[in-house]
């Protein structure tokens, strides 16, 4: 009798059996019940995997990880170094975020759309980058860590033909590290 009970209860071991011939999906309600994930609280069974604990020795190394670099893009009104209305609002947030960080380097790169000559656009993109540089200096970012560059129309965000008025290309990209 005891043997039979053991044999029957042994059937619960079926839940771990793998059906190598048929489909992996349960074929009956009972089987679905048996094969459902068992919710066992931590420590109840020696077979339960305990969550990976943070190694206290790793804490210093983790804390030493530098913060993720911050990147922002601001847009300009056609043929000017004035922010668009939306970017004027966004600029405040961007500069506040930059100010709140301990930064080692701010890279400011100006761009234009393809309207006008290449030469003119290099100057325009430089003026846009310079505008952002002045804003950063005004907010206390040290001058010597700001790098500016004007790319003119050489690195379009939205690829267009020449002489195309594209607002997304009239931008400055700020990379704060």
């Amino acid at each position, binding site marked *: 009798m005891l043997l039979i009970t053991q044999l029957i209860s042994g059937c619960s071991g079926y839940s771990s059996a793998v059906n190598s011939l048929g489909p992996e999906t349960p074929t009956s309600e009972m089987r679905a019940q048996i094969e459902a994930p068992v919710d066992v609280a931590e420590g109840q069974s020696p077979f339960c995997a305990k969550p*990976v604990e943070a*190694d206290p*020795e*790793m*804490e*210093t*190394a*983790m*804390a*030493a*990880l*530098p*913060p*993720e*670099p911050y*990147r922002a893009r601001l847009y300009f009104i056609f043929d000017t170094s004035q922010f668009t209305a939306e970017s004027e609002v966004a600029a405040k947030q961007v500069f506040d975020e930059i100010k709140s960080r*301990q930064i*080692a*380097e701010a*890279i400011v790169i100006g761009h234009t759309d393809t309207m006008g000559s290449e030469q003119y656009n290099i100057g325009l993109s430089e003026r846009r980058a310079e505008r952002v540089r002045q804003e950063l200096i005004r907010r206390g970012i040290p001058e010597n860590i700001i*790098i500016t560059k004007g790319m003119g129309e050489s690195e379009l965000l939205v690829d267009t033909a020449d002489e195309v008025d594209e607002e997304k290309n009239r931008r400055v990209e700020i*990379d704060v*590290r």
Partner: protein
Amino acid sequence: MNISFKTLLVAQLFCSFIFASTGYAQTVGIVKTLSGNVQIMRAGAKVNVVLGDKLFKADKLQTESNSSVGILFNDDTRVGAGPNTAFSIDSYHFDIKSQQGQADISITNGTLALVGGKLTANNLDAVKVHTPTSTLAATCSTLSVKVDPIFKEVP
């Protein structure tokens, strides 16, 4: 040199999203966080690390007890080293245009945490951390390594 190492490696890998950024100049990275005393061995000379120091290929770094250092690489890979840690930047290459490249970092002692940047985002095997007994690829994004020399025999 007769040094026996028994290393204990704890590697934890998590997936996380990575934001892009560009890298510049010949330097491979920059010292972004610093506490205590950290030295850099470069071309036979040993100098104290200062916040904002630029790092180059083949640089070896050593943190003292109660010290740590954090590095931001050009591709936005971030590395944090705990106390009594010795590690080196064996190789580093990141091409801004193609956003590809590779990096090898060796740790001989201590603790190191790494968060992948563009290199790992574009190639899972691009960033490798070498320990005295194994090589770990920073496959997804976060990796932490601990190397404990249980005993060292000095001849």
